[in-house]
Structures are given as structure tokens and as C-alpha cells.
């Protein structure tokens, strides 16, 4: 195989990125000309995402490598692009009513989400460290702004600043890791690195190992795994709820896609060394996430810790490395998108102007006062916990399957014990919803578009749980 072919320009393979970029700029331009009512932007944004999803099938003879082996259209990248479009669309839908209520009237909001999505697609499709870094930066910069989009709100600004400072710090690690990797192998292409490692043509071994560890740390920040998980609860809590949901799904999925690619495609030869590190990180992440969530009284913080623990489960997929694991990873992210957006949808609905009702005790009596909403939340929480026959269960089943196939029994046993712990705090929300007396009359205004997000979430969660067959065949190459 020719390692470094002459850089050819294959715009077709870039189609999703190009289409979405065009629409993003369109949204930005439109924002200048339309008045205070931004609903037109929503429509254009959603159309853009739909077109992007369609255009990701511009190449179907996967895998297609282009731009001198730094960009790829393959099974994973296409599936992830779908997930990104879905999660961004859901985030935009979720924002419509929320922004109206919270008086967030900036048109940039939508273009930032779209730009972020462009970054995510690049991240999931890159096979070159430089490209991956570019993707991460595009995603991160958008998120810094989005987290602080409620400028008047102290928490929101705090979240943005915290995320920015820590994010910049972690990016340093990532870049340094990439540099060391480049230094010892002489290339930034993932395939090239793998080649160099397997043929033993690497520089000093300690530098390489150092690079790997720094990469684990850098990616670890992006996916909110221990020891760089501390930002997640604060940022999740402070950011506007739709942005929180978005951050928990899209960018996280993108980071995992790149994480998976870098470690399984570039460094299979070093597997014994990073496997151990990642296993430890995964186990601690699960425990920290789950035990941390138990203490929380704020639903957003609780979901933040829960998302940390989910990062732990997902790390198991990276450790398992196989193609089955990559399918498990995408399936998990899809299931996670549905249930997370659904849960945050309910969280958004419960809020009112000036009072977000984010404490668990605000959920008291919800199950009987608004039975359907209570049922929806119950389904999302149980699915997050991994109870059959819901999407979360099938997703976990898939990951555990992939890991057991490669023989990681201990890791899986620890993961299922963590699932059992996680039931405790998911059930705690249900305890409040069904088993506590309401503290006052709940005033819920059922805004239609948010309801739509919840319904999509329910459909996805139940469908993927009961009949995962079709999606499984798509997910598995």
C-alpha cells in the first residue's frame, strides 16, 4: 500500500462538511437580515442538518480514503455523522422554546451549534493527528461560547470560563502528546504511525509512551473521564439546558470517535501499554461518576455525573478494540443520544421563566400530576441505567458483549456492578417523582417543540430497545 500518496482533492468525500459549512454561513448571514424572530434560522438549520445527513452517503464504496490519507469515509464516520446530525437537530429543537423562555435572542446560537457539528464530523472522519486536532478545536471553541451564551447569568459565565480554562489546559496535553507521537514516528497519519510502530522504526520508547499517556489525558478531558472530569458537573449545571444536553451527546460522541480511531488504528502495536492505563481510567471513571451521582440533589449535576459514568462504559469499547467494539460504540452513542435528549427535554419542560426547577425535590409528585411526563422521565432514567427492554440495555449489552468476546471479564464484572450502583440514583429521581408528596402545585407549560423532542426520545429509546435489529445491522460493517 502506498503510504503517502500524492495529496489529491476529493471534495465529494468532504460533502457533509461542505454542505453543513455552507448552511452554517447561510444561517449567519440570514441572522443579519431577519428581525428579532429567529424561527427562520431554526428551519434553515434543520434543513442543513438533514442535507448533511443525506450527503454523507455521497460515497458509498467504503472505506474511501482521501486527502492523502488524512480523511476517511467509512462505516464509523458515516454512522457518527448521522448521530451528530440527529443530536444537533434535537439540540436545536430543544432550544426553541427554551431560548424564548430564557430570552436568549442571539442568532449566533444556531450557527455555533452547526459549526460545532462541522467540527464533530471532521473529528469522526479524520485519520490524521493534525485534522483531529483541528476538529477538536472547532468543537471546543463553539462549546466555550455556547456554554456562556446566557451572558447575564453568573453560572453560565462561570461555566464558560471554567470550561475554557480547563479545556485550553487539556488541549495542551493533547497537542503535546501528538507532538511526541510525531516526533517518535515521523508522521501524523494514523496508518503511518501504526506502520512505524509495528516495524519498530520509532524513536525513543519513553517518548512514545509519554505521548500515549498525554493523549489519554487529552482525550480524557474531552470525554470527561477521570482525572479530567471535574469540569463536567459545573459546566453541565451552568450551561443552558439544551447546550448541556448537546454537550453530553454530540461532542462527546465525536471525541469518542477520534479517541477510538487514534488508539485502535494508530497504536494497536502499543495496545498492551495503553490498555492497562485505559482500563484503570475506565474503572475509576465509572466509580467516580456513579458514586458522585449518588450525592447529587440537582438533576443537571446528577445527569452530569451519570454522563461521566457512561464515559467509563464507553472506554471499555475502546479497550476491546475490535470491529464489534466500534459498532457497540456507535450503537451506544445513538441510544445515549435518544435517552439523554429525552431526559433533558423533561428537565427543560419543568422549568419556568426565572425558575428552572432543577432540584430533585422539584420533581416531587410529578409522576401522578403529569403521568405521561413522569412515565417519559422514568423510561429515560431506566434506560440510562440499562434496564431492559430499553435502548440503554441493548447498548450496554453490546459493549459488554464486545468486551467479553475479547476476554475482559473483570472489566465487565466491574462495569455491571457499576450499573447496579447507577440504579440507585436513577431510582432516586423516580422516588421523588412517584413516592414523595408534591411540595406545591407543579406548573408545567407543555411547549410543543420540546414535547416533540421528548417524543422522539421515547420512540428512539423504546424502538432501539425492543427492535434493535435494523440499526444493529447498520452499525455492524
Amino acid at each position, binding site marked *: 500500500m502506498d503510504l503517502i500518496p500524492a495529496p489529491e482533492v476529493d471534495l465529494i468525500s468532504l460533502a457533509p462538511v461542505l454542505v453543513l459549512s455552507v448552511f452554517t454561513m447561510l444561517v449567519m448571514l440570514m441572522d443579519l437580515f431577519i428581525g428579532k424572530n429567529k424561527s427562520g434560522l431554526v428551519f434553515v438549520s434543520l434543513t442543513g442538518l438533514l442535507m448533511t445527513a443525506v450527503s454523507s452517503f455521497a460515497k458509498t464504496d467504503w472505506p474511501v480514503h482521501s486527502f492523502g490519507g488524512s480523511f476517511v469515509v467509512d462505516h464509523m464516520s458515516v454512522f457518527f455523522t448521522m448521530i451528530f446530525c440527529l443530536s444537533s437537530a434535537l439540540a436545536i429543537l430543544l432550544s426553541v422554546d427554551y431560548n424564548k423562555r430564557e430570552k436568549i435572542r442571539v442568532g449566533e446560537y444556531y450557527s455555533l451549534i452547526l459549526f460545532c457539528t462541522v467540527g464533530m464530523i471532521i473529528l469522526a472522519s479524520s485519520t490524521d493527528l493534525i485534522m483531529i486536532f483541528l476538529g477538536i478545536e472547532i468543537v471546543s471553541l463553539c462549546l466555550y461560547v455556547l456554554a456562556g451564551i446566557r451572558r447575564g447569568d453568573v453560572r453560565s459565565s462561570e461555566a464558560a470560563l471554567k470550561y475554557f480554562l480547563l479545556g485550553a489546559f487539556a488541549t495542551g496535553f493533547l497537542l503535546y502528546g501528538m507532538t511526541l507521537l510525531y516526533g517518535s514516528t515521523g508522521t501524523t497519519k494514523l496508518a503511518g504511525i501504526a506502520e512505524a510502530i509495528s516495524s519498530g522504526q520509532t524513536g525513543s520508547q519513553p517518548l512514545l509512551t509519554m505521548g500515549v499517556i498525554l493523549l489519554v489525558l487529552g482525550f480524557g478531558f474531552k470525554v470527561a473521564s477521570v482525572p479530567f472530569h471535574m469540569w463536567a458537573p459545573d459546566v453541565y449545571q451552568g450551561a443552558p439546558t439544551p447546550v448541556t444536553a448537546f454537550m453530553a451527546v454530540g461532542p462527546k460522541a465525536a471525541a469518542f470517535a477520534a479517541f477510538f480511531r487514534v488508539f485502535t488504528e494508530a497504536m494497536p502495536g502499543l495496545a498492551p501499554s495503553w490498555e492497562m492505563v485505559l482500563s484503570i481510567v475506565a474503572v475509576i471513571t465509572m466509580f467516580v461518576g456513579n458514586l458522585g451521582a449518588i450525592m447529587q440533589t440537582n438533576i443537571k449535576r446528577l445527569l452530569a455525573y451519570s454522563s461521566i459514568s457512561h464515559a467509563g462504559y464507553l472506554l471499555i469499547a475502546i479497550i476491546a478494540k475490535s470491529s464489534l467494539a466500534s459498532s457497540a460504540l456507535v450503537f451506544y452513542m445513538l441510544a445515549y443520544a435518544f435517552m439523554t435528549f429525552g431526559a433533558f427535554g423533561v428537565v427543560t419542560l419543568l422549568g419556568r421563566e426565572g425558575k428552572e426547577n432543577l432540584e430533585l425535590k422539584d420533581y416531587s409528585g410529578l409522576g401522578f400530576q403529569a403521568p405521561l411526563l413522569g412515565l417519559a422521565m422514568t423510561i429515560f432514567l431506566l434506560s440510562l441505567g440499562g*434496564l431492559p427492554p430499553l435502548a440503554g440495555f441493548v447498548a450496554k449489552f453490546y459493549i459488554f*458483549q464486545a468486551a467479553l468476546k475479547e476476554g475482559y471479564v473483570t472489566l465487565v464484572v466491574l462495569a*455491571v456492578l457499576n450499573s447496579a450502583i447507577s440504579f440507585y440514583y436513577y*431510582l*432516586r429521581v423516580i*422516588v421523588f417523582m412517584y*413516592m414523595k408528596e408534591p411540595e406545591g402545585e407543579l406548573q408545567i407549560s407543555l411547549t410543543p417543540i420540546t414535547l416533540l423532542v421528548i417524543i422522539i426520545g421515547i420512540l428512539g429509546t423504546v424502538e432501539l430497545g425492543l427492535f434493535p435489529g435494523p440499526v*444493529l445491522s447498520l452499525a455492524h460493517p
Partner: protein
Amino acid sequence: MFLTFLTFLPLVGAIALAFIPKEEEGAIKQTALAVAIADFLLSLQLYADFDTTTAAMQFTMDIPWITDWGISYHVGLDGISLLLYIMTTMLTAIAILASFGVKKHVKEYMMAMLALSTGMLGVFISLDFFLFYVFWEFQLIPMYLIIGVWGGPRRIYAAVKFFIYTAVGSLLMLVAIIWMYFHFHETVGVFTTDIMLITQQINLDMIEQKWLFCAFFLAFAIKVPMFPFHTWLPDAHVEAPTAGSVILAGVLLKMGTYGFLRFNLPLFPLASVEFLPYVCGLAVIGIVYGALVAMMQEDLKKLVAYSSVSHLGFVMLGIFAFNHYGLQGALLQNINHGITSGALFLLVGMIYDRRHTRLIKDFGGLAKVIPVFTVCFMIMTLSSVGLPGTNGFIGEFLILLGIFQNQMGFAIVATSGVIFAACYMLWMFQRVMFLEIKHPENEKLTDMTPRELCTMIPLIIFVFWIGFYPKPFTKTFDASIEHLITQVEPKKTHESPGGHHAAVATPVKMAKAEAGLHETH
């Protein structure tokens, strides 16, 4: 198809209830009851159509579900599950009738009850590991809500404890299931989660069997509950509403023993024999410990709850006797315990509704005030004690007969459990029903209402029916028991040449096994 219809009928009923306005409590109760009774009556058809001469699965249905993973919707009944299935539909109807007095959130309560029924029925018919696991976990949610929403003062604690205990056990079982799934693919070359196929063809060595046995054991031992894993049970029973306790004791505990019969024995025969002394030891400890603790209880409901720990110990002993009598007794005692404990919980619930207390010392002399209630209570007490002529006698007698044949030591200790049972039950009965009336409130108690009598009569009929003529019941599982014994025996003798297993396989059992082989071929 009929079996699927019966299993999902309650769930459909639950969904239908959602469309009845909340205020129409009468209509909601009646609809729920009608669905449950219809389900029970229709399920009797299964008994009529059941072929008792074969151990094969009947009423089967097998359609692909998740083809990528070789998972299918495969259901069926055999002798082990048939009576449990029918008992479940019956107890559901009785439980719903018994909960007509429920005050708050009637609609949600009835929906939870019906959904619970589908979950339980599904566990007994699943012939696919994945499907089994889905039902196994699914029934947790309605039960969790029933305890947590409609239960007593410490209901939240009890509900969460119930849920987490079961979840921990079953998640490890899930790991074992997935492991077997890959192992089966490696050795046989097929990706499947079909229980029948795996049971027939899987080939596991001793070490593998031991690990897998432990994973399954934990899940089922928590559910049974066996001795060190039983602590969730008193809490759940005491806090659950009456109907919840009935279902919990009557059906949910049976899922544990059912699991041992369906999975542990046929899948891991070597490990089952290897662990026999430990399992029997725990069972015997459970029998004696449960009885002693029951004796000390001041709360009627707690007393019945601990008596369950003791009685289920007998069932476990019967299962691990590995012979015809033991297994027959275990299966029958499963049903007996469902009837007797269910009835006792109902009776305790009735008295609690009247007096709002369950403490033994608050009663005394009730026999004069409420004679009908007392007679019912006495019948169930005697059945629980195992008086000849009642169902309890037949079950415990068969179990002891079975275990005496090859585990003399355990049998002797277990027999003491029967005596202890007489002690705590009769002593309790005496303190509640006889003696002088110490509390003036007790003089004004009203006797059973017709509705309450309706919940009791079917159970009383079964107490005597099984007690005097158990044949219609035992004949349903004879063929399956023979098959089960042959599944355990040949593997045991072929794969473990060497002394210490042979010691367990007594000549009587070998003869049984051969007889079983001849019958089935």
C-alpha cells in the same frame, strides 16, 4: 400463540386502563379484575391441553427477534413451569380483588399490578436467555413501584433495597449469559441465546461450570431468598401493601427456585453436584434460622415473611436432593407456599385493615369475635405447619423423603424445621385467636366481607385438594422431573470418573436415571 396472548393480555389490560378517566375508580377496579380473571380462566385451558407424558416444551412459539445476535422470541411451557404459570394468573386475580380497598392512585396501582403479571408470566415461559432477562428485569419496576408508592412507612427504603439486591444478582447473571453465548459460539459454532439449544449442547469443564454456577446462583439465591441473601425480604414484605406481599411471596420468590431448576441444574450438573453440600448447608441454615427468627417476631407480617425464608429452604433442599421425590416435593412445595403464604398475607392484611396494627400483642381472643376469619386463618396455619391432609404436608414430606435418601445429615436438621414451624405458627395462632380479649377494640371487629371471602375460598380449596389428592398436580411435572434427572446424571457419571462424585450418586438415583432414560426414549 395462545401462550403469548395469555402472557401479554394483562399488559394490554394495563394499557387499556390508561384510557379510563382517573375518577372512575369503580370501573378501573372492575376492568382490572375482569382482565385478571379472564387471564386465569383462559390459562386453565393450558392445563387441559397439557400433555403430561412428555418432558418436551409445549405451546411453543419461536420467531426471530434480533437476528444479528441470534436472539429469538422463543416461549413454551413444560412441567416445571406449567403450574407456576397458572398459579401466577390465579394469584394476580386474587391480589387485584384483595386490593379493592386501595385508596390513592387506584388507576396507577391497577396498571402496575397488571404489568407485573405480564412480567412474571414472561419469566416462566421464556426459552431464550435474552428474553428471560428482559422479563426478569421488567417485573422489577412495577413491583418496585407497588412497594414504594403504596407501601408502609419505610416503603422507599424497602423498595430501593428490593430493586438493588435483585439488580446486582441479575447483572452478574447477565455477564455469565454473555460469556456462555460466546463460549457456545466457539465450541458449537452458532450464535444463539436459545436456552433449549444451549442446555442440550453446551460443553463446559468443571472450572467454567463453577464460575457460571456461582453467577447464576447469586441471582437466584437472592430471589429465593437463601440464607445470607435474604435481608431484603423482611423489609419488602413488611412495607409492601397486602397484594404486593401476596405476589412477592407467591410468585416472585418462586422465580428463584424456578431459575435453579431451569438453569443451574441442567446447565451446570458438575458444579451442582460439587456445590451440593454448600447449597444444602445454606438451605438448612435458612430453614432453622428463618424458623427461629420467625418465632421471635412480634409483627404478624414479619413472622410470615421469615417463615417464607424457612419454607423456601425446604424447596431448595428438595431441588438439591437430585432425585424424583425431592424434585417432586420441591415443585409441589413451590405451589403450596404460593397458596399458603399468599393466603396468610391476605389474612394479615385483612386484620390490619380493621385494626391498623399487626402486633401480636394487640390481639388475643379473636376466635370469639370473628369466627369465619379464625377458621380461615387456622386452615392456613395448619397448612403452613404441614399437617397431614393439607398441601404443606405432602410437599414437605416428599422433600424430606428425597433428601433422606442421600443427605441424611441435612435431612435430620431440616426435620427440626418442621417442628419449629409448628412452634411459631401455633404459638402465634394461640396468642392471636385464643386467650382473653385484652383490648376492647377487638370486641367490635367485623368478620370477613364477601369480597374477602372470595379471595380466600379458591386458596382453601387448593389447600385441601393438594392435601388429599395431589395427583392432578404432581402428574404435570413427573415427566419433566425424570428428564431433569437424566440431564444431571449422565454428565455427572461420564465426565467425572473418580471417586468423590460417585459417592453422591446413590444406587437409587442411578436406577431412577435409567428408568427415566427408558421412559423418554
